[in-house]
């Protein structure tokens, strides 16, 4: 009875975890630009992997596998935001985004300010004084 219940729960976890990968692939194919594709791509890497590792732990039914699985999941949880941040930063720098799709662009003011601070037409010459 209990075995059948645990089997059913882990079967549901496996199917849903596989569907996360399918959702990521559909998002990769249908979303318009890099930023929204990044949103879709993190689903199998975090939630899908969590569900599948939970299914592994439920199927093996020994207590000592759970810390190992938790370590594997936490490692993924630490590395995925770092690589997503790097890809997003490189995508912003190289203009791989469509500005009309963003609701707010909080980084643009910072970039403008930094460019103005180190820029050459700021308050150094007569051109700036005429304005």
């Amino acid at each position: 009875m209990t075995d059948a219940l645990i089997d059913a729960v882990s079967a549901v976890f496996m199917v849903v975890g596989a569907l996360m990968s399918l959702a990521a692939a559909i998002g990769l194919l249908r979303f318009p630009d890099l930023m929204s594709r990044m949103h879709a791509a993190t689903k199998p890497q975090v939630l899908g992997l969590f569900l599948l590792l939970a299914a592994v732990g439920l199927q093996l039914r020994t207590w000592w596998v759970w810390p190992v699985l938790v370590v594997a999941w936490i490692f993924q949880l630490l590395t995925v935001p770092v690589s997503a941040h790097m890809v997003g930063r490189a995508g912003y720098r190289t203009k791989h985004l469509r500005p009309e799709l963003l609701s707010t662009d909080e980084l643009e003011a910072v970039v403008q300010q930094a460019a103005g601070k180190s820029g050459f037409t700021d308050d150094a010459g007569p051109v700036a004084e005429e304005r």
Partner: protein
Amino acid sequence: MMQLVLTVTAVVLTLAAAGAIIRIARGPSLLDRVLAADVLLAIVGAALCIDMAVNRHLNNLMLLVAISIIGFVGSVTVARFVADRRENVRES
């Protein structure tokens, strides 16, 4: 029941891998391809997990961690050294 789960997840993961490979082939920029390759690695990891769960062993656990390390190092390296080479920026 495990056989049914194995079949269903195999079909779903095959479709997902096909989608990621299509995005790698078609992706307009290098960063899109890196992202799709990362998703493809996640799909391979999911297949390894399902193999472990259905057949009840832990042989693939190190391979799973190694795959996530490779994905992390690869995407960070490519994102660090990417440069914009396109003519038309609004192509996306």
